């Protein structure tokens, strides 16, 4: 008996420790640590909780290749970084779409359109013949200052650094164009996606590896354009087919309510199990606390992107988690009613219920995996939390609860009432008399 008591106490301590780590994390040193959900870096909140903007771009071309789309993603990455959206995440969606998530960004109107632009930079002469294009540009930066000597006002402009090849092209072209001053066609048009940015006049040969583009820019448009020029030209243009913004306050409130709902739900389920299955229920409750702890540890350490449906999935899984226990306990009760000893009833109950537990969970796992792999956005988030919930709950019901029950039996707790059975064995047995 004492050995069982020690084991029982040990597992309770372990479960308490798991819950503690799940909540508060464990810091070995500053760097070697396990974050808990209450830590700053504990939960990776999805956009619907944190607030921000989601943009889905669709390639404006038929059947883009995988390579093309990968290029698009990496170029978008550069453009985003260039505009200071370093927190942004990019994912490919389907065959021709890219999903951009900008956390904390409420007003992304600006970003939305420039991000998807082809960014085809062209310098053309009066005959619309190309002189130079984006590939001749080594670097582009947005700057602020006087664009011309003697001009009193300052403005934003884009400074280009040309490649050697670009410098040669530019020198040749400007020499030629400067010669056209007679018929007033000595100008170069700088086009961005076929929209003129500026149309400067050329009066002499320009042999330099830098040049500037002026235009009606403000700080942000200049920066965005520079980033686009620098990242290069997309193989095709992108149009946003979906733009969503969520304010952070909405997510905050949602999170708080969901957590409250989860705690109350958890308590109700624990009470229900305790009232209905008594000692068995208590064991299930202890295992359930361990389950919650493990799930918390997993979501805060695998950095699962937690969305609102994801939280609902976790809370739902608390209700589902006791399911395996219910199946097993009902079976144990049946075995007890047949007159078996507590020990053999528990063994038989577990063994016989095992197939039902596994089969019913696997079917749910199938759905969760499909949601996780094929779903997008919040659906994906829900799929992963559901999957974690089911797998952990199944294992906890099978192993943890069984271990706890074994120790109970080891401690000689054998009153049938404690196992959820009312009346004496004979009465119970006669009730089931008709069974084949």
């Amino acid at each position, binding site marked *: 008996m004492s050995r069982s008591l020690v084991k029982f106490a040990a597992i309770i301590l372990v479960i308490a420790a798991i819950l503690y780590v799940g909540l508060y994390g464990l810091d070995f040193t500053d760097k070697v640590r396990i974050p808990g959900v209450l830590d700053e870096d504990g939960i990776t909140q999805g956009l*619907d909780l944190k607030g921000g903007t989601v943009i889905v771009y669709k390639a404006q071309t038929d059947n883009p290749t995988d390579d093309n789309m990968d290029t698009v993603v990496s170029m978008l990455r550069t453009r985003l970084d260039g505009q200071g959206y370093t927190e942004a995440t990019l994912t490919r969606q389907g065959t021709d779409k890219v999903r951009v998530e900008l956390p904390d960004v409420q007003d992304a109107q600006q970003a939305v359109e420039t991000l998807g632009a082809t960014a085809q930079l062209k310098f053309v002469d009066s005959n619309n013949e190309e002189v130079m294009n984006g590939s001749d540009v080594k670097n582009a930066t947005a700057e602020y200052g006087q664009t011309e000597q003697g001009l009193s006002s300052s403005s934003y402009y884009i400074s280009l650094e040309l490649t050697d090849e670009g410098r040669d092209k530019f020198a040749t072209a400007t020499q030629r164009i400067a010669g056209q001053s007679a018929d007033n066609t000595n100008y170069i048009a700088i086009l961005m996606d076929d929209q003129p940015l*500026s149309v400067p006049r050329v009066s002499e040969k320009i042999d330099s590896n830098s040049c500037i583009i002026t235009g009606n820019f403000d700080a942000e448009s200049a920066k965005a354009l520079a980033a686009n020029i620098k990242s290069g030209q997309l193989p095709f243009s992108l149009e946003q087919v979906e*733009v969503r913004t969520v304010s952070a306050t909405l997510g905050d409130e949602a999170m708080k309510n969901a957590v409250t709902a989860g705690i109350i*739900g958890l308590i109700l389920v624990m009470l229900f199990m305790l009232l209905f299955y008594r000692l068995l229920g208590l064991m299930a409750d202890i295992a359930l606390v361990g389950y919650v702890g493990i799930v918390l540890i997993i979501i805060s350490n695998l950095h699962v992107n937690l969305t609102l449906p994801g939280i609902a999935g976790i809370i739902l899984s608390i209700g589902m988690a006791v399911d395996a226990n219910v199946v097993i306990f009902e079976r144990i009760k049946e075995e007890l009613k047949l007159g078996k000893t507590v020990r053999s009833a528990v063994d038989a109950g577990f063994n016989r219920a095992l197939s039902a537990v596994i089969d019913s969970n696997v079917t749910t796992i199938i759905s969760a995996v499909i949601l996780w792999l094929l779903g997008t956005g919040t659906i994906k988030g829900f799929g992963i939390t559901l999957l974690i919930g089911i797998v952990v709950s199944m294992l906890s019901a099978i192993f943890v609860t069984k271990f706890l029950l074994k120790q109970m039996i080891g401690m000689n707790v054998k009153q049938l009432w404690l196992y959820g059975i009312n009346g004496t064995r004979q009465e119970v047995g006669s009730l089931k008399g008709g069974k*084949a």
Partner: protein
Amino acid sequence: MFDIVKKKWIFLGISIALCAISIISLIVQGFNLDTDFAGGMAVTYEINEAFTVAEVQEIVDNALGNDQSPSSVQQSGNEVIVKFGFDNSLQTDEERSDFSMTKIAAITSALQEKYGTPAPAEDANAVDENSEDTAAPDASATPEASASAQPDATASATPEDSEAATAEASEAPADATAASPEASAAPEQPATGVVLKNQDIVSPSTGQELARSAMWMSILACIAILLYVTFRFEFTSGVVAVVALTHDVLVLLGVYSVLQLSVDTNFIAAVLTVLGYSINNTIVIMDRIRENTRHARKETYGEIANSSILQTMTRSINTTITTLLTIGMVYILGVPSIQVFSLPIIIGIVVGFYSSVFVSGPLWAMWRDSGVKNKKKAVAK
């Protein structure tokens, strides 16, 4: 002993009726599709002035103009949600995205004209500028677009007046300071005027793709479950399980169609959850049937099914209760967006309980017993 299998026609009748109503409703009135599916714009504004919905509706209608599918304005507290669809004449994604940007900017500036702007005057100018641009076909409502639209004008008006624009090969003039004073105008404003809080712009094609991908996910899940159950049990059980599943999803869809509840992306996740979870009870019953069949001697399949259902009844009820306790709390305490997600799950769990207990067992018994009868007939011949 209560005999569910003998009274099967009552239960099957209820199910068939529910499915029939669902199918008819789905065909006749379909779904009340949210912006997620139908495509369109849903914009939330916070208005920190006294306003009425009718007032806002009028402003919105004026801002949108005539060439427009009807808009709706809903109020919750000091926020209004303005929803409107795309113009049907818009063909390409580009046209649609320009359209949405332009129209939203138009509504925003119209509302701000009436109820005031939250930010300093500078920003208000920016907004006005945008709304002026709306006439130009290619201009969309971002400052970028207006920036690029202007040089356009310069270009067409002969290059002479482009003095301001120089490409003089240059050492970049004067030391440029990267600091951008206006760029950081956004932070902390007092709560006045009209603030655009949320905006959802969804192209119609997105909704269709979403529905298509949801359908594929459902079909895939059904096939995978059918295969698994056939492998672990036998084919009859697999088919019965999938029939029960289809029943649950159909009735769930039916409830949403009959009551015209709004259907969005999260609804799909909920339906797929029901798909995975409602089968739980069925599987536990099938597991019992599998076990009882092994020990059975003279019992008919009907008797086996019935005793299996009754033996697992407490468990079916209790599991349903614990699941409803948690998801029910989410529904009661949650914010609207999470309620929208939990309601279909609640409906699905209840329907799933019904189909597992009252439909799947009897169906299985009918099929197996008919197999027996056919064999007997064959023997008699």
